[in-house]
């Protein structure tokens, strides 16, 4: 009895902690609930880049992060996924088209030297000097003709490379390519040592927007490898709000009906099961908020399914307890044997669910992952709540007395003790839960 009271207070403390966690921590809602955009970018191999290395992915991620941050939206996420992919999540983006164009656009700046010695050439070779060697780009105007130009400032290595290159190219043109397009090809008059260069838009000059975009892209960090959006999932805030409102209603109705069913069918144990279910919900929700698990539609579905499994554990236990009562055992023995016997079924069945969840979590896509995580956590917590909460409350309420009113368990008086003929267990043994 003393242990049970300690346990009871333990559960109370756990519930209080859960409540505090639920009230203080924010709920992390997935993009399909709040609205937002999820993009998957894949690094593309090119002629010069045959293989995507982890280093390249690191710098690509850095560059993409920079760009995403420039959008000025809070709580963006950039994550690695697999060998050559990045997942970008942007909540509440107002102009998605523009954002997408900005994130996915390459900013490949390359300085190329003429092939061969010809003065007028259309063939160019790479020099190894690229956008990576820049420290800064600025928008400015050409003093002589007032056209928009892009000023470039190299970093230390860039300055060295540029100095070497211009020294070799004196009297020859040097081409500047941006995203594979020739921008201008000025003829180098003398070596440039101070690490500055300028891109003019050729004879016609740049439009303001054109030059501005180039500067923004260059400053956000050139993508070390070209990246392409290969998957997109965008949910507008209206649909998100709709889903969340409806899931809430569905959850309340579903849970209410289940609780009602339990009380009608199982009577007093049903009330205990409902209480255990509420505690289960609180603990699980607190865990979701602490980890934190991002709630998505699939995650909510997993959560609701786990409620079904939590109820199942209670049903298994009560059915077993009822059987033991029918077999003529005392209430205390019936509850204890009921739990012990039901436990193997609960354990084995839940283990298979967990195995499936683990495999799903390891191999699944992000939607499937969210589902697997909530379901697995739900199953684990449901086992805990069935074994500790339900059992403890049952023993606290019924433990010491004998069952005077079978209706409390939803049994008829004449059902009690009829089991002897069926199980052929001796009455003396049955009292102690022994079956021969």
């Amino acid at each position, binding site marked *: 009895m003393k242990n049970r009271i300690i346990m009871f207070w333990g559960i109370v403390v756990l519930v209080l902690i859960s409540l505090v966690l639920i009230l203080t921590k924010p709920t992390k809602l997935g993009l399909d609930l709040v609205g937002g955009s999820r993009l*998957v970018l*894949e690094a593309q191999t090119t002629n010069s880049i045959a293989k995507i290395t982890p280093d390249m992915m690191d710098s690509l991620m850095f560059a993409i992060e920079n760009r995403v941050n420039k959008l000025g939206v809070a709580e963006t996420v950039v994550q690695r996924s697999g060998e050559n992919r990045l997942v970008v999540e942007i909540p509440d983006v107002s102009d998605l088209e523009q954002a*997408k*164009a900005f994130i*996915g656009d390459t900013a490949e700046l390359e300085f190329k030297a003429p092939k061969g010695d010809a003065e007028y050439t259309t063939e160019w070779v790479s020099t190894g000097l690229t956008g990576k060697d820049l420290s800064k780009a600025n928008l400015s105007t050409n003093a002589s003709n007032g056209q928009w130009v892009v000023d470039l400032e190299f970093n230390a290595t860039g300055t060295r490379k540029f100095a070497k290159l211009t020294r070799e190219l004196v009297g020859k043109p040097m081409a500047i390519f941006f995203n594979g397009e020739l921008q201008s090809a000025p003829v180098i008059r003398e070596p440039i040592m101070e690490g500055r260069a300028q891109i003019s838009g050729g004879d016609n000059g740049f439009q303001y927007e054109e030059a501005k975009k180039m500067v923004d892209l260059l400053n956000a960090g050139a993508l070390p490898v070209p990246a*392409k*959006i*290969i998957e*997109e*999932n*965008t*949910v*507008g805030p*209206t*649909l998100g709000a*709709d*889903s969340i*409102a*409806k*899931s809430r*209603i*569905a*959850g309340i*109705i*579903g849970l209410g*009906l289940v609780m009602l*069913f339990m009380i009608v069918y199982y009577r007093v144990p049903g009330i205990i099961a409902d209480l255990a279910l509420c505690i289960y919900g609180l603990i699980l929700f607190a865990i979701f908020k602490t980890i934190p698990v991002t709630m998505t*539609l*699939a995650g909510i*579905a*997993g959560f*609701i*399914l786990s409620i*079904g499994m939590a*109820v*199942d554990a209670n*049903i*298994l236990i009560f*059915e077993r307890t009822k*059987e033991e009562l029918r077999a003529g055992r005392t209430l205390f023995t019936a509850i204890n044997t009921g739990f012990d*016997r039901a436990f*193997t*079924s609960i354990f*084995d*069945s839940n*283990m*298979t*669910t967990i*195995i*499936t*969840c683990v*495999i*799903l979590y390891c*191999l*699944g*896509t992000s*939607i*499937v992952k969210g*589902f697997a995580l909530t*379901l697995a956590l739900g199953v684990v917590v449901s086992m805990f709540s069935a074994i500790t909460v339900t059992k403890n409350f049952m023993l606290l309420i019924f433990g010491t007395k004998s069952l005077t009113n079978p209706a409390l368990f939803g049994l008829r008086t004449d059902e009690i003790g009829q089991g002897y003929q069926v199980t052929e267990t001796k009455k003396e043994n049955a009292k102690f839960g022994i079956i021969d």
Partner: protein
Amino acid sequence: MKLDIVKFRFWCLALSALLLLPGIVGMLYSTVVTPTHTPLRVGIDYTGGTTLQYGVKKDITNDKIAELRNNLENAGIENPLIQIINVNVAKDNTDLKSMISIRTKFIDSKSDTQQKITQTIQKNYPNAELVQVSSVGPTVGKELFKNSLIALTLALLGIICYLTIRFQFDYALAAILGLVHDVVFVCGVFALMGIFYGVEIDALFVTAILTVIGFSVHDTIVVFDRIRENLRYYAKKMSFSEIINYSINQTLTRSINTSLTTLITLFALYFFGGVTTKDFVLAMILGIAIGTYSSIFFCSVLIDIWKDKDNQTHKPTPSVQPAV
């Protein structure tokens, strides 16, 4: 209530066959007829493509689809697949009534196809709001399909191993056949829905199938656990068939009640939940209903039949069996 499953075991198998047959025919038909040659109509998650969904604040009837398609084709969109989805009327803060879902080939982020579609839609429905965009590159679709199959195979292997350790290989095999039974049923129904209503499966469908697998095995194990326990106590007093019957009847109330409570929550999700998860929930409802059926009427019957065969081949004791 007392069910004599073992007596009617061949009828049980016949009923299972009857339940599965239409779906299997549907899947075969679909494999031959659909352009993707898959047993089920697959969505962009597997084929690659872009789906745009527009929320509209008034009811749209299906006869508007032809007009929309014409407009879109005139705007240069090839083969758009258009569906009208009716949104549940629930008390909430939005007043979306219908959704227009348009599926096209994969739209590259650099092309202006998306704007073109939006403009075309807004010509007919000025208030239409782009509420959802999903786009999957062609290679990603194939990968997802492959990964789904790998996940499925591994999940099955995991379950077989666990059950062989905890029970016996016989039981593991019966449980696996039971879940194949359930999965084929659900897939069959969706194949038929694909043929008659154009329902497509997406990434969430795989999740639903995996849940069905989990639940199906969950249900079967509870029955098997009872058989295992009863065998320990009554093996000498009762025949194997009697024990199976006895165990099924003992767990019957539990099986029904558990399915009932899970189905209650799922039905609540189906009728009151968001429109995007409807098919997902439907797949789980079907799976859980059939899972309960198969754990009672299919898996246990299999075990019984196998045990009978075993006894006939291994123990031909003429002294017990009367000579024919």
